[in-house]
């Protein structure tokens, strides 16, 4: 048994990581404190990073951990720690749309599963992965427009953040 497990370590780990990611996601729905929810999300993201690594796209795995966990979730955790703990939302976790929401989620899952099961997947490519070099070349030549657009988007984000700060600043002064 160990041989079969060790032989198919990739697949086993893949399935394990996938399951763990799913469990982390599910935990996000049930945990009460936002900090706990953040921890669950971080775990999911890390497991996803693991999956990316197992799939061979290491750079994406790296960026996943770097950007998502390292920037986004850290920001999130800061804000959670900043804001008040004694909040009514901590007593009642769920909004009024619980039952309709569950129904909607199940319906969505059903539709998508139906699509995948009947749509059929494209057959796996023989030379499955591509190297980082190939990816970078493609990114900067074939998809250069999107690359530039991302920089525009980031500028917009910076401007927006400055605008929010300015408002926050004015608010402070008025007080």
């Amino acid at each position, binding site marked *: 048994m160990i041989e079969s497990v060790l032989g198919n370590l990739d697949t086993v780990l893949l399935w394990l990581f996938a399951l763990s*990611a799913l469990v982390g*996601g599910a935990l*996000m729905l049930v945990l009460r404190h936002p900090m706990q929810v953040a921890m669950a999300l971080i775990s999911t993201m890390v497991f996803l990073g693991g999956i990316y690594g197992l*799939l061979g796209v290491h750079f*994406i795995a790296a960026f996943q951990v770097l950007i998502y966990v390292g920037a986004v979730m850290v920001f999130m955790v800061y804000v959670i720690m900043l804001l008040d703990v004694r909040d009514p939302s901590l007593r009642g976790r769920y909004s009024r*749309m619980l039952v309709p929401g569950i129904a909607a989620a199940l319906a969505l899952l059903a539709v998508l599963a139906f699509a*995948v099961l009947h749509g059929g997947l494209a057959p796996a490519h023989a030379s499955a992965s591509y190297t980082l070099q190939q990816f970078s070349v493609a990114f900067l030549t074939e998809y250069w427009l*999107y690359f530039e657009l991302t920089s525009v988007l980031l500028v917009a984000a910076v401007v927006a953040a400055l605008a*929010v700060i300015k408002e*926050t600043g004015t608010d402070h002064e008025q007080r």
Partner: protein
Amino acid sequence: MNNAEMLLFVSMAMFSIGLLGVIVRRNVLVMLMCMELMLNAVNLSLVTMSQQTGTTIGAVLVFLIFVVAAAEIAIAIPIVLLLVRRKRTLDLDAYTDLKG
């Protein structure tokens, strides 16, 4: 079920869970985090399909989603902070200024 299919199912399930979380949870920060979960699910499916087809477009899109997610969080959190300052609560049921 091969790996690809399984990963796709996982991606779909995570997306549905994320959607459900956006709809049912009352804390605004938790709602934001569930939106991040949805984005991650999409990333997973993109990577899977990119690996299946051998093209790079999936990976490129993943990168774009990284950028977008980061920018979005950079703006969303300050907005939430301003909202909380005005309403003094993180409860989404209190944010009903768009009523009518």
